[in-house]
């Protein structure tokens, strides 16, 4: 749509179709998690309420954006999926109904299934003695494919 303002005419309509920015990774994530990342409008609410955000190198909303754009390397090298505590605060608060915690689980799964990010808990005997079973089992579950 062309608009006239102060003698200049410029195009105010921007068309970005999800078709054009489709990324294979976003689709893979969506297959595993059921989350449609293309619905995200980057409001940042997921990251605002994330209890672990302070320790993440890429925020949850940024993970979503990077996935939309197919920037898999950035996602894969980020500590975010391994810092996330799967608390579900992001998923239940997203105004677009995107299941971000599930999407981050999918990122973990893709990394683990690709076998290019070997994960070990590497707990010492002392740690195993100290930690309750619930902590060890759940931590293992998050690095199991």
């Amino acid at each position: 749509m062309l608009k006239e303002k102060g003698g200049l005419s410029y195009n105010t309509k921007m068309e970005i179709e999800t078709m054009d920015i489709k990324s294979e990774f976003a689709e893979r994530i969506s297959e595993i998690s059921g989350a449609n990342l293309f619905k995200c409008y980057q409001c940042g609410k997921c990251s605002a309420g994330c209890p672990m955000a302070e320790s993440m190198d890429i925020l949850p909303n940024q993970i979503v954006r990077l996935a939309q754009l197919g920037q898999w390397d950035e996602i894969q090298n980020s500590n975010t999926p391994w810092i996330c505590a799967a608390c579900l605060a992001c998923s239940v608060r997203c105004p677009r109904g995107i299941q971000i915690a599930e999407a981050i689980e999918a990122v973990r799964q893709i990394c683990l299934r690709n076998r290019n990010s070997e994960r070990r808990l590497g707990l010492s005997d002392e740690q195993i003695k100290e930690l309750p079973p619930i902590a060890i089992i759940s931590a293992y579950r998050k690095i199991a494919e």
Partner: protein
Amino acid sequence: MTKLLYYPGCTLKADAQHFEESAMCALKELGFELQELERWNCCGTVFSLATDNTMFHLAPLRNLLRTREEGGDKLFTLCSMCYNTLKRANKLFNEDPEKNDKVRKAMYEEAIAYDGKTQTLHLLSLLRDEVGFDTLKNKIGKGLNGIKLAPYYGCMLLRPDGLGVDNMEHPRVFEDLIRAMGAEAADFPFRAECCGSYQTAQQPEIVAERTRLIIGSARKCGADAVAVSCPLCAFNLDQRQAIAARLHSDFELMPVLYITECLCLALGIEFKEPWKAFHYAPVDAVIRKMEKKA
């Protein structure tokens, strides 16, 4: 005595024995007897969020099946994570025909087929819906009058929406229970903020920072102690205070009690000496204060 089929989960047989024992003592006083499932297995602690792998759901579903085998249709739990995992697995079983088919096929060797009819019942729901807070209040009387408790829900009692024990963003069941015990419930902004969960295994320092924030908030609210209902929350909020204190010289320890320990004290049941050893932040002073009140 009403018998309840009871699923303890792993940690109630290890680091949270005092949670189980105090629950048994308090519930006995209220007319319930916990009958442990004859055969049970670990539920896996976390509900699998990946939709393309259904095998992780077998562990929780098998416990629900055992309940049916023993003739029950309700399975009682104390641990928030078990509660969440069992309940979500059942919902998936009943509402997702494709996954239902897969898990059924994988459980072909079981003596009976699971019918999806086991309901998971958490302690807080039992006290609210079956005992009733008014009845409880009448029984307790003055109880813990003069004590202020910070109710810590954590994540798995509330999320995802519709699966928790109460409204996800505005829960009140914990507060109501605390009031029924005669105590005051702190208006505690961190009550549903994650403690860092399983990250405690590999990222203890990050979790200790969460602990510092959550405990610090409870302290600002004037709480005498934090009340919890999850062994992982309990570990993080209590045991991780050691790291918080090491990293921050101004950090002050605060007692973390299972809600059932508080309930025992409110009901005038003695706080057993061995329970104390499970706690990191000293509980003696607050227990003395609570005993005097009850």
